[in-house]
């Protein structure tokens, strides 16, 4: 052995180290690859040795090679070996290598779990640090789940060095294992106030990252962050917080108001540009959120714009860039303030720095108006000419098109000008955006009817000069415009001056070099032109039939070239057209007039359809798209054929259009008639607008356009290439003329005020008295008639951050406070029955998340754990818990209610109070805003996230999670269902063997019911009182933290047509039970319900009662008074109710373990009692579930038809039940240390079962 070691170290001497490797590579520049491959061979040899130092050296070299692009994943196992070395030097090398090349797909990662756990708990802080850093790079969902607890513990490490790393890595853990977020959050929040600035900064960092993705869940932290912002001097922290506020303000406008003042102060005082910049950014965000009429903030806008101008004018390019960036944010809401700096921005367009020019371009988008559009575009066109480098030029091109086409061509007053701009853009060489220009051409000529004549003329010249565009192979991108040109000429051929020439241009042999899809369009439109020419000829003098003959011949001569095309589409269309022409020629020889019939092939008009139209067609009632239309689907049928079958009717018109019917014309006409009728009755058919339903030949209503005729005979500079400049000039003249006219009109007082026609044309232009040259009838994009207006179809369901959308304000049930642990790991914690389920669930969790809203049943699972460590944990948690319940309860409500109830103090009401003390004071209208935000957030309050976190808890501190769920789910009309999963004993045995040291009390039992048949939905909410105005449902829960408190949650539902306001809640206190009223209120005062109810809306409020003795049930009389405000009247109403505090409501579901349970029973302190229930026909597990649900028990152990159950009162009474069932008879033997309590509970159980 010793010899081996010596040998190893001698070998080592001759091994290359990293420096040798680098040097070697540098010295073998010519044959680097070869040299490296020999090195890799050496490394492979080294890795085979036992000496860990040699291995570490080899791994170190591999890390270097990885950087050079060599795949080193084959050495993953060796990396793990090096990671597990006991020496820090080697360990560090291993971790670096792992963090460079491990990823989720690396299979050896699962081998690292225990090693990492060992390193995390290492006494050396650097071992821990290195492990944390490494883990942060390659953490997987498995690692995150297994190590979350260890990392959470490290967040309270004594060394700040470890603390800050542990805090930071939590973000990665949350991402991979979202279930850990809720349990870890309290501690994370604590770290915001850590004495060490590094830790604090790390915590701010993590929360900011979290909040950026799901800001609404972090609103309640606003006061804390505000405090930090005003107290911190660390610019890093300040920047992060200020950025965070930027994300929060859109959700809570009151926050914005509160922020403005300190931010403005910071802007004035700070010398750090980065901080100044972020402040300005956030102020902008605030202003955007407040944008609705806050005149007094114009000063802030001015301040921002002014500061930004200073940045933009700065010689530092970075500041200039950022200034422009921020400016573009203001632009959206306050375009006026930015427009005044147009000079500066136009100047930036000339900057030598491309980044800055691009930013300036972005700004231009918002700075255009009808007045200056032409001027700005002219300037951009100059840049296009000057621009070297295609990227920037392409960017310019898209910007020009963006600017012009924005909001339905709002700023274009002269479409001739725009079309000529588009034509000019086609001269760009090598642009990638040919299709963009093409689609603009199509869009404009389809939607702006008045421009068609002009556009067609332009397109015809473009087609004629096609060789200019296609001459160079590199210009390929631009030939897309020919697609548009051909289509426009064909479709609107009635505007063509010389259709024959254009037809000829379409059929040039050169065309066959164009891309296939363009040729196909050429063919189709050649046919259209042919039809148009024929028709024109027949209408005219008979002498011209020669021309018709000529073009038929032309087609017959030229088409065969395309019939041979390699492109199928071209081939097919060409041969179709060819046959058609031949046939027509034959007919014409017989002197048959076919012109009209041929045109009929192409009649009808295409309307632009909104991109989302198809998606918005509502599914008609009773149509199930997922159902098979025909029974017995054959295997071969592909899935996507189904919807087509459903929508054939819709697609039909398209088919008929392109089809060349062999059928005779009469038949065709008949079919068309039938189709039209069908379409008229078909709600799903996208109908053409009335104008467009006119025949093809009808002039598209241009005559009602009152404006100037443009003289098209103006000579163009280049043949076919119009210069846009002349339109600029013409437009100016026109405007002057218009102005003059307008003046005259004004003198005459009201001239005829012509309303503008067309939906697309557009908004008030009070600032400028420019009337568009064409009162353009912009055809708007069509949508199905009953399209749903929602716009929520842009959400990405795969967003990894969605899983982190977790309500953090809901109080943590104690069972959640510790993360679930997989028990087959050698943990100190003993295994417990929930684990198996926990693991199973983790797998299905992501799926559930997505479907959360649709889920009908809230799965609920209860797990019990017992941990030897628990006691320690509990102490740590203690002070957290002290502040938590109140705050969490209330802030949970913030998302549900407009404002939290005033009856209890908590953090959310703090938030509200804090916000309401904003300088301006919230006006009443704003009350509604958080409420409006609430519905959006409500469905995401993750009713299942609580059970989703496999709980681990201790009997005395557990709080039931189910009422929480019941509450949140209630609003969504979903009933919680109890389900329990069977524990898998086998596996537990297995664990047991493995980790005998783990405490091993395996006796734990849990709800062991596996049920298939569903249990009828249960709700804790019972009807409290109801009249024609209001309905109240209530649920009563003991308060875990305070043995003398009971929380009553009441859902108020407005059943009337009016608004319910000023609701006041009052009860007559008894000696034993008292309503807790706000401080300063007398014992008989009302408690105001903290919200108002619009018609049909329900909301929940909670009231806290203090109770002295809980052994007896209690009934309290109460009244709710409220004002019903309908449109014309308001009346004062009241409703009496009786609150029934049952003894069960004083019980709290508390898990218990069978050994503890046995001890409890043995102790002899308990008094017994029993009850028999006859005629219970429900399955045993349903029975248990009902007892658990309604009476807050938990199952300790179940054997066949016998189960032991446990619960605990808020004052610590133990209640034990032994439930047995034989033939519809259920006997319950019960023990409790308080006999009257027990008696009452048993009575209540009896009542429950007698009711069902």
């Amino acid at each position, binding site marked *: 052995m010793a010899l081996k070691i010596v040998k190893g170290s001698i070998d080592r001497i*001759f091994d290359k*180290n*990293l*420096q*040798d490797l*680098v*040097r070697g590579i*540098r*010295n073998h520049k010519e044959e680097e690859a070869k040299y490296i491959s020999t090195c890799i061979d050496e490394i492979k040899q080294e890795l085979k040795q036992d000496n860990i130092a040699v291995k570490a050296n080899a791994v*170190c070299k591999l*890390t270097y090679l*990885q*950087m*050079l*692009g*060599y*795949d080193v994943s084959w050495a993953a196992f060796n990396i793990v070996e090096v990671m597990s070395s006991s020496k*820090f*030097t*080697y360990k*560090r*090398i291993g971790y*670096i290598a792992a963090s*460079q090349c491990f990823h989720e797909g690396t299979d050896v990662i699962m081998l690292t779990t225990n090693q990492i756990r060992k390193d995390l708990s290492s006494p050396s802080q650097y071992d821990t640090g*290195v492990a*944390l*850093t490494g883990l*942060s*790079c390659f*953490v997987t969902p498995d690692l995150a789940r297994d190590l979350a607890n260890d990392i959470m513990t490290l967040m309270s490490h004594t060394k700040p060095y470890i603390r*800050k*790393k542990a805090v930071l890595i939590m*973000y*990665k853990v949350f991402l991979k294992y979202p279930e850990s977020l809720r349990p870890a959050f309290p501690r994370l929040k604590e770290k915001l106030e850590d004495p060490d600035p*590094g830790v604090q*900064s*790390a915590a701010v*960092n*993590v929360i*900011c*990252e979290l909040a950026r993705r799901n800001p609404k869940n972090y609103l309640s932290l606003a006061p804390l962050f505000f405090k930090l912002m005003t107290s911190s001097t660390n*610019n*890093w922290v300040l*920047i992060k917080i200020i950025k965070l506020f930027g994300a929060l303000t859109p959700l809570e406008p009151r926050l914005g108001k509160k922020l403005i003042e300190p931010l403005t102060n910071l802007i004035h005082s700070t*010398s*750090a*540009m*980065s901080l100044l*910049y972020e402040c300005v950014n956030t102020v902008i965000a605030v202003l955007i959120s407040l944008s609705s009429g806050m005149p007094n903030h114009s000063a802030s806008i001015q301040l921002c714009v002014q500061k930004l101008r200073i940045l933009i004018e700065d010689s*530092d*390019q*970075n*500041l200039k*860039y*950022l200034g422009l960036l921020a400016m573009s944010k203001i632009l959206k809401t306050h375009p006026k303030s930015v427009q005044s700096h147009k000079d500066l921005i136009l100047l930036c367009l000339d900057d*030598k*720095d*491309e*980044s*800055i020019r691009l930013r300036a371009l972005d700004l231009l988008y918002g700075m255009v108006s009808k007045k200056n559009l032409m001027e700005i575009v002219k300037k951009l066109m100059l840049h296009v000419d000057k621009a070297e480098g295609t990227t920037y030029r392409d960017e310019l091109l898209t910007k020009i098109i963006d600017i012009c086409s924005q909001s339905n061509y709002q700023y274009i007053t002269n479409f001739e000008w725009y079309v000529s701009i588009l034509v000019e853009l086609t001269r760009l060489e090598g642009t990638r955006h040919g299709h963009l220009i093409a689609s603009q051409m199509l869009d404009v000529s389809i939607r702006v009817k008045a421009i068609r004549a002009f556009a067609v003329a332009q397109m015809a010249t473009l087609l004629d000069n096609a060789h200019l565009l296609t001459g160079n192979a590199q210009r390929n991108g631009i030939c897309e415009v020919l697609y548009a040109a051909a289509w426009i000429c064909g479709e609107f051929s009635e505007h063509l001056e010389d259709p024959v020439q254009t037809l000829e241009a379409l059929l040039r042999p050169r065309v066959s070099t164009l891309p296939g899809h363009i040729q196909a369009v050429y063919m189709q439109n050649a046919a259209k032109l042919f039809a148009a020419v024929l028709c024109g000829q027949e209408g005219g003098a008979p002498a011209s039939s020669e021309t018709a003959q000529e073009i038929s011949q032309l087609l017959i001569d030229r088409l065969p070239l395309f019939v041979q095309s390699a492109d199928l589409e071209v081939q097919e269309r060409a041969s179709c057209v060819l046959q058609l022409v031949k046939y027509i020629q034959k007919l014409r020889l017989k002197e048959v007039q076919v012109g009209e019939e041929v045109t009929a092939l192409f009649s009808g008009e295409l309307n632009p359809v909104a991109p989302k139209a198809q998606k918005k067609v509502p599914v008609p009632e009773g149509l199930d798209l997922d159902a098979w239309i025909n029974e017995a689907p054959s295997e071969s049928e592909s899935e996507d054929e189904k919807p087509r079958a459903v929508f054939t009717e819709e697609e039909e018109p398209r088919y008929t259009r392109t089809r060349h019917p062999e059928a005779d014309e009469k038949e065709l006409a008949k079919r068309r008639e039938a189709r039209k009728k069908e379409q008229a009755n078909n709600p799903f058919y996208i109908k053409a607008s009335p104008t467009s339903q006119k025949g093809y030949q009808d002039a598209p209503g241009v005559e009602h356009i009152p404006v100037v005729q443009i003289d098209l005979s103006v000579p163009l500079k280049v043949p076919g290439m119009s210069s846009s400049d002349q339109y600029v000039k013409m437009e100016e003249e026109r405007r002057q003329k218009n102005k003059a006219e307008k003046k005259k009109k004004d003198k005459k007082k009201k001239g005829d005020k012509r309303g503008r026609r067309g939906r697309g044309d557009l908004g008030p232009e009070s600032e400028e008295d420019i009337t568009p040259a064409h009162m353009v009838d912009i055809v708007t994009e069509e949508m199905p008639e009953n399209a749903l207006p929602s716009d929520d179809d842009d959400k990405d369901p795969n967003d990894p951050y969605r899983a982190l959308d977790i309500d953090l304000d809901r109080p943590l049930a104690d069972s959640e406070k510790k993360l679930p642990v997989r028990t087959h790991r050698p943990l100190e914690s003993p295994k417990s029955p929930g684990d198996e389920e926990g693991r199973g669930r983790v797998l299905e969790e992501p799926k559930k998340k997505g479907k959360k809203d649709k889920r009908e049943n809230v799965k609920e699972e209860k797990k019990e754990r017992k941990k030897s460590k628990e006691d320690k944990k509990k102490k740590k948690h203690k002070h957290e818990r002290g502040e938590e319940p109140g705050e969490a309860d209330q802030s949970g409500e913030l998302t549900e209610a407009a404002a939290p109830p005033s009856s209890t103090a908590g953090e959310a009401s703090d938030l509200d109070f804090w916000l309401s003390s904003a300088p301006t004071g919230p006006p009443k209208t704003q009350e509604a805003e958080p409420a409006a935000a609430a519905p959006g957030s409500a469905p995401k309050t993750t009713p299942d996230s609580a059970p989703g976190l496999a709980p681990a808890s201790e009997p005395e501190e557990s709080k039931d999670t189910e009422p929480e769920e019941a509450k949140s789910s209630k609003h969504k009309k979903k009933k919680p269902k109890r389900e329990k999963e069977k524990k898998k004993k086998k596996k537990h045995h297995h664990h047991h063997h493995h980790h005998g040291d783990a405490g091993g009390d395996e006796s734990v039992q849990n709800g062991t019911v596996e049920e298939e048949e569903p249990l009828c939905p249960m709700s804790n909410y019972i009807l409290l009182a109801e009249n024609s105005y209001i309905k109240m449902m209530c649920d009563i829960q003991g308060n875990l933290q305070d043995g003398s408190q009971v929380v009553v949650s009441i859902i108020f539902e407005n059943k009337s047509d009016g608004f319910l306001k000023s609701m006041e809640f009052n009860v007559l206190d008894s000696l034993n039970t008292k309503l807790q009223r706000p401080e300063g209120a007398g014992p008989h005062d009302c408690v105001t319900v903290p919200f108002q109810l619009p018609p049909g809306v329900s909301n929940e409020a909670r009231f806290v009662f203090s109770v002295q003795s809980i052994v007896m049930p209690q009934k309290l009389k109460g009244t709710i008074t409220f004002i019903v405000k309908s449109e014309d009247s308001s009346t004062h109403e009241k409703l009496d109710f009786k609150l029934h505090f049952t003894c069960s409501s004083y019980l709290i579901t508390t898990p218990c373990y069978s050994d503890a349970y046995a001890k409890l029973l043995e102790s002899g302190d308990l008094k017994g009692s029993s009850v028999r229930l006859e005629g219970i026909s429900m399955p045993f597990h349903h029975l248990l579930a009902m007892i658990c649900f309604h009476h807050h028990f938990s199952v300790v152990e179940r054997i066949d038809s016998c189960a032991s159950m446990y619960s605990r009162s808020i004052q610590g009474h133990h209640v034990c039940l032994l439930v047995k069932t034989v033939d519809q008879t259920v006997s319950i033997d019960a023990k409790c240390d308080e006999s009257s309590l027990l008696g009452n509970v048993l009575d209540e159980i009896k009542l429950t079962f007698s009711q069902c």
Partner: protein
Amino acid sequence: MIKAILIFNNHGKPRLIRFYQYFAEDMQQQIIRETFHLVSKRDDNVCNFLEGGSLIGGSDYKLIYRHYATLYFVFCVDSSESELGILDLIQVFVETLDKCFENVCELDLIFHMDKVHYILQEVVMGGMVLETNMNEIVAQVELQTRMEKSEGGLSAAPARAVSAVKNMNLPEIPRNINIGDINIKVPNLSPF
């Protein structure tokens, strides 16, 4: 979040790469090439921000870089990071390198990539800024170096001697080139 940190020289040779999101090796090299292509054609007096890296990130991401003598330090970050803050972080990182290597130059990075990684680990962790205080970073790095030394280091003295022997016949190793003005202060930016 920082998505990637790339250090390469004026010729695009990588000196350190650190991706905080998984990319396969060939993709990594492609990203380096693309980034180099974007960055290298920019003058020194233009701004340090760059959009348009198509391989890495997307619209939410920016490249923020600094050019020191022969080296480019490029950080790819998303919108949650402050642009000027990251510029400052690069400065802090380079100054730290300067302190740890005593007048850092490209060769230090070439031959001691591992050490650069160790330093970077103390600045950025898993894509998030860990520490911005240079003294703290240097102190932690030094403590760890000391720990390594106490363990005898990776290559103890004999190996060094041998490596000298191994290199006897090789052409002269290039002399250290100083990066020169490494302590350029960010204009108008007060230190964090």
